[in-house]
């Protein structure tokens, strides 16, 4: 167990430093643009720490509805890394089967809904403001 600031707090303090101290003092417009991007990248990382496990569990649940037999092999992974490996494996399988035609997706069917939900989950981490603005968070 580490002392505080914890991981999220560390990221947030660097982000605030970039945004509030570095950006206003950077006169080169290119550099300022990239400093803003760097601050935004840290916001993404902080949100990912917060949401990662919850989103992976949701994603895995949906993938198991598409591939029920996969749940028998790896019943309920505890560690986030294990969870990630399981989701990655099934996602790759889905991509391969969509490509080969073994799986198909049409608007509204379970495969389509799963893939769309996974994109929304990515953007809850990467760009929640965009999701809200475009009304695509549904």
């Amino acid at each position, binding site marked *: 167990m580490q002392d505080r600031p914890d991981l999220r707090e560390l990221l947030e303090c660097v982000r605030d430093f970039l945004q509030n101290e570095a950006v206003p003092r950077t006169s080169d*417009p*290119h550099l300022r*643009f*990239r400093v803003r*991007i*760097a601050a*935004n*990248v840290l916001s*993404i990382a902080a949100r990912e720490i917060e949401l990662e496990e919850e989103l992976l569990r949701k994603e895995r649940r949906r993938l198991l509805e598409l591939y029920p037999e996969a749940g028998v092999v790896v019943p309920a992974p505890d560690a986030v890394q294990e969870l990630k490996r399981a989701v990655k494996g099934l*996602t*790759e399988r*889905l*991509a*391969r089967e*969509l*490509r080969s*035609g073994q799986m198909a*997706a*049409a*608007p*509204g069917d379970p495969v*389509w809904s799963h*893939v*769309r939900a*996974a*994109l*929304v989950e*990515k*953007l809850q*981490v*990467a*760009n929640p403001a*965009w999701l809200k*603005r*475009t009304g*695509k968070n549904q």
Partner: protein
Amino acid sequence: MMSPEEISRRLAAFLSREARSEVEVANLRPLAGGASRAAIALDLEVKSGPQAGRYAGVLRLDLGGKIYEASLSRAQEFRLLREAGRAGVNVPRVFWGCEDPSVLGRDFLILERIEGETIGRKIIDAKELEEARRLLPRQMGVQLARIHAMDFAALEFLPRPQPEEPAARAVLRRAREEIDRLDDLHPALEIGWKWLWEQAPPCPRPVLVHGDFRLGNLMVGPEGLRSVLDWEFSSVGDPHEDLAWPFVLDWRFGNEAMRFAGISDGAGFLEAYQKASGREVDGRSLRYWEILGNFRWALGCLTQANRHLSGKERSVELASLGRRAAEMELEMMDLIAGSESQGS
């Protein structure tokens, strides 16, 4: 990258040989460039000989990688820009081009410097460009009609579809290779690719396609469109590719409600294009190419992030694009769903 002094010194030596004269290179300053190329303003003076005179130029210098593998070389872009100028398209004049790596280590062009705004977000927001925003849709329609009327017979290097093949499928075959080069698999791209392949509309009369026709690749002043830039993704293809591209969600630069480039509903743009080109815009093809546009830009984001991840070009800007692909994939899926429910 080299220091400005080093670039000046090497350019002066190169240009002295080219122009057979003493050449002075001065006032280098970086401009807003693209992700694959740097743009540096510079002033040139050729002291004597047939090219004697002062030149307000911009140096377009290749960076490490390419966004799409199919992008053109500088020599090809040089020829294309000359042809575009002859066809009445507003383009900067090309002063010099060079593909000799011993000069700057990278390919480059020196173009006429045209002042104005190229940053999409600023074109959409700037107070002094209000009149420009009103004029741009029609001006863009007219310019695009001229581009699509260009004679591409002599431009043999442009990628083009097989005879009888829908132009979209040529694009998709190239995209397939790029998907296969990514490290991760993407179900949404697979869904999109399949749908796009099956729905590819016929393209009876292929034209010269600019390939990246949107705000951000135009030089804009208070009176509107000054110049069409960034021709490196040109090909022979379906005119609807260019027509649909500025409608793509991300090219509305945050002003999503304005479907055309974030500045209008697009009616004036399409009307001006039809009038100037004598071509009918097909509504179904336009919707199709908007979907393909989102698919391509999603893939473009992943490809650029890969340039960072592979170590070819470490950059926080490129890296961050990897997390943006989902925006385009989501828009693509929603547009497909919308088009399916319309039954088209």
